[in-house]
């Protein structure tokens, strides 16, 4: 293969990797009370897993935590797994409190309240929702011969994310607000010899939007995070 052809191949690969589908993101927020975070206070972000036909993805929860920590550097975010393991079995899918008033019942156990206080938890954020493929069309067929493999066709699919975060104040045992983030996008996969995926990063955009909004909810942003453009 000539040097020129190698450059062409690299350029083609870079273009393919840089292609992304478009995503529309809508965010909404309701704030019942002002939030107040003191130095050292922590926030825990957890996913609701009680739905029978869907599951809030663990990777979305860790994404929100990571982006939220970057959005507002003063926020101390406790990783979901650490918190849930430390308080096992009280925050499992079927045992986690579903209403803010259920916290009172849980905190009547001294061991639980002392563990949560060790974490200096001020706010508990429950994220509920999921990302799913809503429509798909087209077909791609691939063949294998002595000279090599090749694909031909076109595929497209729509993906939709819908998440709602409910924020509880641990100290006052009250619901302080809700943040919702919904995103949808269409991904494409044209295939002429090589399939070229043009993926709409719907879940990642929903995560960034949710985290940016939560960052605003908990205080002024110190570093802005690019919220996906709403087309």
């Amino acid at each position, binding site marked *: 293969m000539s040097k020129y052809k190698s450059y062409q191949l690299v350029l083609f690969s870079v273009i393919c990797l840089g292609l992304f589908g478009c995503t529309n993101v809508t965010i909404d927020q309701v704030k019942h009370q002002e939030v107040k975070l003191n130095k050292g206070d922590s926030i825990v972000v957890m996913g609701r897993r009680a739905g029978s*036909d869907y599951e809030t993805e663990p990777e979305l929860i860790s994404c929100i935590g990571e982006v939220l920590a970057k959005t507002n550097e003063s926020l101390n975010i406790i990783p979901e797994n650490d918190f849930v393991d430390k*308080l*096992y079995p009280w925050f499992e899918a*079927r045992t986690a409190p579903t209403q803010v008033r259920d916290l009172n019942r849980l905190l009547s*156990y001294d061991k639980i309240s002392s563990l949560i206080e060790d974490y200096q938890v001020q706010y508990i954020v429950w994220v509920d929702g*999921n990302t799913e493929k809503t429509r798909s069309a087209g077909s791609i067929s691939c063949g294998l011969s002595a000279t090599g493999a090749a694909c031909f066709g076109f595929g497209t699919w729509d993906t939709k994310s819908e998440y709602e975060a409910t924020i509880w104040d641990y100290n006052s045992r009250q619901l302080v607000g809700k943040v919702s983030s919904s995103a949808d996008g269409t991904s494409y996969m044209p295939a002429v010899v090589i399939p070229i995926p043009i993926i709409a990063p719907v879940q990642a955009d929903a995560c960034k939007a949710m985290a940016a909004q939560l960052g605003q909810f908990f205080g002024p942003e110190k570093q802005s995070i690019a919220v996906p453009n709403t087309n």
Partner: protein
Amino acid sequence: MTYISNKVINKMRFCTLIFFVLLTSCKSTLNVQGNFPTPVINQMPFSIGVVFDPQFINYQYIETGKDRSEWEISVGKAQVQLFDVVLSAMFSEVITSDKLQTISNKPIDLFFQPSLENFQYNVPNETKGKMFEVWLKYNLKVFDGQQQLMADWVLTAYGKTPTAFLKSDEAALNEAMVIALRDLGAGIALRFGHVPEINQWLKSKHQALQASTVY
């Protein structure tokens, strides 16, 4: 010419062999592995003898359905690990055995014998939500210190995990299994004392303990 023909035939044989090796390797094998945290619960001041029979320790599910993919799932070690962690947090002393008998000279307050009655799973193409799902149905038996059956109840556990990009089927099913076992642990830790016969026994023991403290 004969040499070339033999070479081609050998290559074809080799390709056929590789093809059949690939075909036979389609079976998925899973040895469930996970870390189970210690439950945050109040420990009871009683000793318990836990009976893990060999069938329970080596429990393996082999998929026999013709219209399903081949799976070989070993749950035994993981469930023993879970029971060890949970029961050690619940009782002040835990002694394990493979038979229902007095294990040492020291009297044992309770005996506990779990058995896995039913194991079911679903893979993403069988579920609406494209998830791996696991159901476990356990039969739990509790015997008193004289090895007389005191309580016998069924506890179910459920775990699910969504499919994720670059996650193998084995890793996803393992995650669903671990979630189901954690659910089982939660059920035992939080509901053990609510089983009527056990609740009654615990009350009488607490009263006896209080009385012995007073006098």
